[in-house]
């Protein structure tokens, strides 16, 4: 990693931490308050691509593990890795990677704005929702012995909020690409 990539990953990790310090937003049509922090994970992939995005997320988890209260709601320390929802934290790493990988390969600067936006949305949706919940639900099912269908049922309430975040991530990803392109082009 060259120094610039390292700095970009560290700055984005700081953005993810800062997003966790903002109060959760309640949307009228979803019963669960949503935190901006998991939006930050999708944004890391969409803005920085797979490698640097994953590094940014890993860095946030590392900070949490060494005892800094960097996760939303002031959570931190090794105890967050001993919670039933730890699968979602592990899933963040893969979510950022998959989101970044899809964004790198399917979003091109020569595409029209609409196509870019849709591709960014699909990247954030597949990485930040499908992959994330696969990890989160599997972990919840195994650790608590709930079984997959029940763990899925328990997580259902959060999915609409995360789909909404994927839309925000897509719009923001496109806006950043226009304003200050950083996404590596591999398509």
């Amino acid at each position, binding site marked *: 990693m060259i120094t610039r990539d390292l700095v970009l990953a560290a700055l984005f990790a*700081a953005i993810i931490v800062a997003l966790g310090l903002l109060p959760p937003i309640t949307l009228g049509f979803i019963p669960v308050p949503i935190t901006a922090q998991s939006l930050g994970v999708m944004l890391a992939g969409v803005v920085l691509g797979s490698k640097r995005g994953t590094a940014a997320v890993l*860095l946030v988890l590392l900070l949490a593990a060494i*005892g800094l209260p960097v996760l939303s709601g002031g959570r931190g320390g090794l105890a967050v890795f001993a919670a039933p929802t730890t699968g979602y934290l592990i899933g963040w790493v893969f979510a950022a990677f998959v989101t970044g990988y899809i964004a790198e390969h399917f979003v091109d600067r020569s595409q029209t704005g609409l196509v870019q936006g849709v591709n960014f949305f699909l990247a954030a949706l597949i990485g930040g929702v499908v992959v994330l919940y696969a990890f989160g639900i599997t972990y919840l099912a195994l650790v608590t012995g709930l079984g997959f269908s029940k763990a899925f049922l328990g997580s259902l309430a959060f999915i609409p909020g995360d789909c909404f975040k994927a839309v925000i991530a897509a719009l923001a990803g496109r806006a950043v690409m226009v304003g200050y392109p950083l996404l590596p082009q591999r398509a």
Partner: protein
Amino acid sequence: MKTLYVEGDSLLHRLPPRAKLLGLAAAGIALFFFRSIPPLALAALLCAAIYASLGIGLRHSFARLRPIFLTIAVVALFTLLVGSTEEAATVLLRLTSLMLLAAAVTAATGIGDFIDEITLAARPLERIGLVKAADIGLSIGLVIRFVPEILDRYRAIKDAHYARGLKPRILTLAVPLIILTLKNADEIAAAIDARGIRTQK
């Protein structure tokens, strides 16, 4: 940013950090082999005793543990609704023990000790060319340095919205925040390289 480390001179404080981390990992695995309630209850009591030995105080401990305990309680309640009482008690005791032990290790180990351990653990990865061990400490420092700056910038962008009579929206806040922050990357990288902090071998 305030760390979750608590100053003290308990036995757990004095143990070497590696022993604490390995012990925690071993306990995490061992807890999943117990399936009946009595040994798990004993484990929970033991972990509570370890946590109490740090002398953090009841009220302060409650504030620290509440967010994670809430998720455990919600999951245990959900297990009770869809499963048996025994299953719910197992989940509650096992996860609470683990949480107490992990929180105790965090409270008794300083950030510097952790970074040293991580750097050491990253040496094998360095040999295969995946990461540079020294970069980990540097990156951690960079994040801690820039979080307050980003929060200031966030407030400035929000004020700019109000000054123009606009309602702050997540999208119009996030985009300028990301662009403004990442635009600094070149300068910071140049400063790091100019000081020779990341010497190339």
